[in-house]
């Protein structure tokens, strides 16, 4: 390890502390308190030990020029006592928490590192101590020993270690299995050495956060003990001042000045610790910025950009037509020129979907394919307007039976969701609520969209739905964790069918499943489509599955529609180099001996897109124009479009000319 590494670690850490307002405020508050404690002899206007000539006017004298914070029951200056009180309170806080953290840290490290029986015994012991209410225990211990500052520090320290022990143990457990620790063990390093050299540094950040909070608890405990009259009467802490004032008539005189400042001091220090601890924790475990119910960014850009996009559309070829046998079916869903971007503070917006158009007819199964991160899921979520708060639709229309879903109010949209367009989510383990039964969750969807007065009828429908996807209806009373992965996925499909939607969007419904179950789920989707006349959008990166079940295919790359056509055309005459590469990267059982070629490189980062064609950096056929100008969507044949400069008739002519 070089000596510069810790310094730069520390610099990075310090930068994030400075960026966190809470941590910074807490740090400043603690620094101020520490300064007051250290400088008390210079700051205090009076010596707190020296008794004044006490006359009756000096007792609980209100604030004045001579005594800024008035006087106490003994005629002493409250401000001076307050300043000196900081020393006692902080001393107890720091030393007691030091004891707690050392005891808790050692127990936690030992339990976490050695595990097994050692861990069991230590943690059981910790559990017992944890359940004994700590203030009564502290009170009893202090009451039974002599009330000296030393004893108080000792008792508070000894009682307060349990939280630290549990925290350090769980962190040690997490760290212990990391590679370099197991490696150190394998080469025979001694346990204390491994703990000190490898584990402690990784536990330390959390321990620091924890220490800050332990200090605040110790200070609170000390003040409570003092207030209850259990501390050293010669060491006047803030709590002790409050005890004196409260028990010696400040309440009946209304001498708030003797009661407010000491309490303010305690709150100041404890709040400083709390803010610092809270801020540091945020730095160590940053939470995601938003959740599914966060107010979304408003789609402000939409109305203005729609005008331009409509002009654009005139120049573009129409959306691809489905194959002949479907072309008679009515169009259910038509997406026109849809663009979505994600905004995050301090970064360029990520253009996750740009100018995508497609249409979907009744009974059609559309395969949406592309590598991970090319905008497939974003596209699906934006159709239901379920984008996270940072996402916004910047242009386009989502016409469902001629009605633009993007123009609906949130309430109208809620009515459309699931009853018209339902979704089967990726990874149904987390998509089902773990604490409600599967049947309940299916019934909930029905109850939301229909008036159901008859509980027995609702139950019957839930049974039918489960039966339809091949789940025994008795299992409706079970919870998701009692289902296997494939069953959960089928339950999710049953739920999607609950309200007889016209369109089902299945987002990689088979990725987490093994091959047999995969086939089951696919077969189920295909047969349901035939049975119920559903239109299905099938999101996947598995081209084999697409060939098997889909009618039409939309290939996406880097947020744009690269190519779209019926499934035979895509497989037999792919025009876009990306589609061609994708097919080469896919094993074809019929061509024994054919070599698989993976596409070099990675999909583009959506907030740093290349200026030209998004595929150009990885494209084997790219030429100069590809790197500067994004290609338009060209019609290759009826119902077959691709966005590639190679298909531009002008480009073809130019090339022919150059060749001649």
């Amino acid at each position, binding site marked *: 390890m070089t000596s510069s590494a810790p310094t730069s670690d520390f610099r990075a850490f310090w930068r994030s502390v400075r960026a966190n307002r809470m941590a910074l405020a807490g740090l400043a508050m603690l620094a101020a308190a520490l300064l007051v404690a250290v400088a008390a002899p210079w700051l205090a206007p009076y010596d707190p030990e020296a008794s004044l000539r006490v006359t009756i006017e000096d007792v609980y004298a209100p604030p004045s020029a001579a005594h800024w914070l008035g006087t106490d029951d003994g005629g002493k200056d409250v401000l001076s006592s307050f300043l000196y009180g900081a020393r006692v309170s902080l001393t107890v806080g720091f030393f007691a928490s030091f004891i707690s953290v050392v005891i808790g840290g050692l127990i936690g490290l030992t339990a976490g590192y050695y595990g097994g029986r050692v861990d069991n015994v230590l943690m059981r012991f910790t559990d017992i101590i944890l359940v004994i209410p700590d203030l*009564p225990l502290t009170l009893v211990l202090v009451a*039974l020993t002599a009330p000296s500052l030393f004893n108080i520090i000792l008792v508070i320290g000894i009682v307060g270690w349990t939280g630290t022990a549990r925290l350090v143990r769980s962190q040690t457990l997490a760290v212990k299995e990391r590679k370099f620790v197991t490696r150190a063990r394998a080469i025979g390093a001694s346990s204390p050495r491994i703990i000190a050299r490898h584990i402690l540094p990784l536990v330390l950040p959390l321990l620091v956060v924890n220490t800050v909070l332990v200090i605040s608890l110790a200070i609170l405990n000390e003040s*409570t003990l003092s207030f209850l009259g259990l501390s050293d009467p010669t060491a006047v802490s803030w*709590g002790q001042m409050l005890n004196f004032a409260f028990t010696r008539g400040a309440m009946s005189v209304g001498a708030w000045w003797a*009661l*407010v400042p000491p309490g303010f001091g305690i709150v100041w220090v404890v709040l400083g610790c709390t803010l610092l601890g809270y801020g540091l924790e945020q730095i160590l475990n940053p939470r995601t910025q938003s*959740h599914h119910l966060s107010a979304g960014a408003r789609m402000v850009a939409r109305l203005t950009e729609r005008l331009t996009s409509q002009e654009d559309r005139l120049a573009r070829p129409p959306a691809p037509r489905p194959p002949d046998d479907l072309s008679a079916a009515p169009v259910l869903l038509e997406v026109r020129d849809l663009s979505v971007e994600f905004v995050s503070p301090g970064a360029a917006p990520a253009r996750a979907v740009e100018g995508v158009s497609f249409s979907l007819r009744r009974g059609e199964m559309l395969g949406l394919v592309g590598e991970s991160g090319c905008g497939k899921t974003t596209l699906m979520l934006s159709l239901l307007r379920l984008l996270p708060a940072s996402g916004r639709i910047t242009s386009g229309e989502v016409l469902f039976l001629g009605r633009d879903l993007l123009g609906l109010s949130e309430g109208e949209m809620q009515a459309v969701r699931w009853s018209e367009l339902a979704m089967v989510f990726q990874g149904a383990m987390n998509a089902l*609520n773990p604490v*409600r039964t599967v049947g309940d969750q299916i019934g909930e969807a029905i109850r939301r*969209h229909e008036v159901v007065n008859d509980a027995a009828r609702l139950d019957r429908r839930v049974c039918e739905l489960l039966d339809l996807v091949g789940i025994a209806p008795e299992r409706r009373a079970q919870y998701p964790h009692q289902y296997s992965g494939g069953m959960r996925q089928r339950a999710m499909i049953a739920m999607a069918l609950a309200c007889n939607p016209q369109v089902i969007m299945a987002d990689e419904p088979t990725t987490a499943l093994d091959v047999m179950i995969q086939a089951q789920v696919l077969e189920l989707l295909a047969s349901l489509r035939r049975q119920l006349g559903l239109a299905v959008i099938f999101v996947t990166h598995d081209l084999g599955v697409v060939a098997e079940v889909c009618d039409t295919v939309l290939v996406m790359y880097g947020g744009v529609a690269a190519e779209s056509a019926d499934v035979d055309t895509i497989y037999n005459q792919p025009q876009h180099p990306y589609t061609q590469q994708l097919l080469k990267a896919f094993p074809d059982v019929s061509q024994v001996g054919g070599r698989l070629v993976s596409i070099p490189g990675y999909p583009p980062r959506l907030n740093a897109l290349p200026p030209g064609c998004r595929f150009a950096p990885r494209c084997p056929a790219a030429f100069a124009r590809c790197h500067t100008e994004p290609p338009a969507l060209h019609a290759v044949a009826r119902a077959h479009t691709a966005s590639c400069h190679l298909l531009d008739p002008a480009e073809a002519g130019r090339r022919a000319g150059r060749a001649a």
Partner: protein
Amino acid sequence: MKRYQFLLQKFAWALFTILFVLVLNFFLFRVLPGDPARAGVRDPRLTKAAQEALRVRFGLDKPVINCFETLNPLRLGDCWVNPLETQFFIYLGNLLSGDLGTSYHTNRPVAAILAERLGNTVLLVGLGTVLSIVIGIALGVVAAWRARTLIDYAALVGSLVAWSLPTFWLGIILLLWGSTQFGLPLGGKATPGLAFASPLEAWWDTGRHLLLPTLTYTIIFVAEYVLIMRSTMLDILAEDYILTAKAKGLTTFQILKDHALRNAALPIVTIVALNLGFTVAGAIQIESVFSWPGLGLATYEAIVRRDYPLLQGAFLLLAISVIFANLFADLLYSFLDPRVQTG
């Protein structure tokens, strides 16, 4: 794991913990420097005969445990007495018959004092706990739902400040403010010397006495529930099943009620259980400030008066209540979490 196994395990664990507390309670008061048990019996206010009677009654003339003074295993024979004659077994026997000793200060049975105080603490703590949980959950949910808006920041900072307040000091300030501004009583449970014409008036009087202690308790505990609820909800609302619920067309209110809150019940039950120890701490401080005649005030008085039997009894009762409350929380947890029910 089947549910009954889970329950059995928790029950056995609670019993074991109680046993530990019994032993701790016994030794703390006998082994620590100053020998408080003997010191109490040597109370100069008692006559010699009374002191002797107490010594015999608490068995203080007997060894603490067998061979307590002689830890040399080879000499066990010299000090071995009938185990039932040792202080520890006398203590256990007395406990089993409900005898917690006699208060040095009032000379009444400790068990009787604690019994009449228990109801008052349950009233104060129960009311405060219900209020703080309801308000805390509501505020926490709103803060999480409206994350990173003004209302969220206000709830967060307000809670952090409230969390940092020493309980007793908040009590003092509220008492100072309430008694001078609104003429609320300075403490106690009932206005002394007042004869009430009807039970309604008596309740009104109790209510006026209960107002400030309950307010103090609620402010202190609401803070923690807001913080816990907020972070729990932030995690839950980012879960996939919330997106499913939203995709199903459920309204925001339905999602919060039927999906998020239901799932947040588990962590909240855990936190409420963990908080029970702090509940006791809160009761001691608040009852001391407001002279509310509950277990907390009994503890405080026992400390101030060096009334060790009362302190010992109060400690035992408080610790055992927390253990039972924890057990109850575990049971509740097993009913709320289907994964425990059905394994």
